[in-house]
């Protein structure tokens, strides 16, 4: 990233010397490290943010929350960190990687999905799952922890055939029909479109996942970063997040 910035600066000086128009690289760039589940909604918000904030541009790096934390502690040049769960952000705070207090900007709840047409005749977290192939997230990753918590609340014991590291892997296995059912975030169910059908899980909101956003202490553009967070938590952000299925 730093190398690239240097190259851009060099390029900019060349362009200035030849008398070109103001290049994009003269804009202030906000680097946002965001959880993978935010990919589509943040990409959309980034475009809107750049349109309404002349002189600012946004660059994203999407990955699993834990991976983002690893990269941040290894010195990645992030101006904004957005995690898909609270514990990861708490770790960042404990490690003094975060300056101010993180803000909850969205929530996500779990739902059950089945392949289109529901070939296995699943009706919910009930006996219809017996002998069927249920795929969930592994305990330890945010959606897996939420799944375990929800199952505990409902007093059911799940017998999954696979515990995936990424929620997108759960989605893929249901979409392809390898699995008869899966437990994913509402936002994932929405992103899968017609490939899956959703079966809401009762009391899902009691095991909701909080999405937190904060400015790392190492941020080189803290002011612009604050502006981006303001935008995400503002009305434009709330609309886009709600469209994607996130809760407020």
């Amino acid at each position, binding site marked *: 990233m730093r190398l690239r910035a240097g190259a851009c600066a060099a390029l900019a000086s060349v362009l200035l010397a030849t008398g070109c128009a103001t290049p994009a690289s003269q804009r202030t760039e906000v680097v946002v490290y965001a959880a993978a589940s935010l990919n589509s909604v943040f990409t959309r918000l980034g475009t809107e943010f750049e349109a309404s904030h002349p002189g600012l541009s946004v660059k994203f790096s999407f990955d699993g*929350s834990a991976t983002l934390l690893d990269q941040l502690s290894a010195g990645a040049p992030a101006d904004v960190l957005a995690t898909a769960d609270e514990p990861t952000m708490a770790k960042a705070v404990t490690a003094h990687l975060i300056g101010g207090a993180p803000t909850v900007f969205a929530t996500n709840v779990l739902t059950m999905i089945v392949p289109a047409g529901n070939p296995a005749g699943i009706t919910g977290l009930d006996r219809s799952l017996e002998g069927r192939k249920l795929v969930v997230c592994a305990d330890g*990753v945010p959606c897996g922890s939420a799944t375990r918590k929800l199952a505990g609340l409902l007093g059911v014991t799940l017998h999954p055939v696979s515990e995936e590291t990424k929620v997108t892997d759960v989605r893929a296995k249901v979409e392809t*029909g*390898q699995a008869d059912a899966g437990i994913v975030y509402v936002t994932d169910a929405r992103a899968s479109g017609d490939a899956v059908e959703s079966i809401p899980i009762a009391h899902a909101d009691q095991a909701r996942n909080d999405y937190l956003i904060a400015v790392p202490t190492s941020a080189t553009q803290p002011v612009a970063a604050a502006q981006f967070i303001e935008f995400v938590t503002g009305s434009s952000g709330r609309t886009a997040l709600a469209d994607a299925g996130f809760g407020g």
Partner: protein
Amino acid sequence: MIRPALPRWVAVPAAAAAVFLAVPLLAMLVRVPWVRLPALLATPAALDALGLSLRTCVLTTAVSLVLGLPLALVLSRGRGRWASFGRILATVPMVLPPVVAGLALLVALGRRTWLGGTLASAGIDLAFTTAAVVVAQTFVAMPYLVVSVEGALRSARDRYDVVAATLGARPTTVLRRVTLPLVAPAIGSGAALSFARALGEFGATITFAGSLQGTTRTLPLEIYLQREVDTDTAIALSVVLVAIAALLVAATARLGRTGSVPS
């Protein structure tokens, strides 16, 4: 005879290459929480992953030998377009990106496919089973055995087979007592490479077999999971994987040195 010396400047890029290859592995060794290592590796999840990996890799190597050796034999005798085609076919899984291998298996053997459905109606349901792990590993690992043995068979001249036949040995006897023993080092190194490749198999397994402790979650999948949960455990397991891989490579190199004359 003294060979003319290499130009001195070669040492510079050579050293750079050596450093480039060694640094990531050394960095991992430095980063290993050595004190906690036994505890990290003794967890049920880690032990299950290690045990599953070793079991499936042994099975994969066995399947690769049973099916891959005959394929290598047939290909090594093959002439013309079909043989070239077969050779390419046997090599492609080696160079497939892991996820592509997984997708290919999924669209071939997935539950919603004709072949997968046929197998399922015959009572063979591969989805999310240890057998699926072996299938995924074999798909990417067997080519290493086939290519290694086929190459050795093709470069071995057929004079020994011819002489053995004129001495009255039936084709099976020739194969058992002459052809295969002569390429034994290549079979050994091919099997070791297959084992190593199977051990590192990740993409096809996670796409095709799933990830469940003790059933389908092999060492690489456990590392992938622990990377999201606990980096120290991930690194500890990685070191185990690196150690096994290094042992296998060393064994292969040894087989290579022994040459074609085991004494």
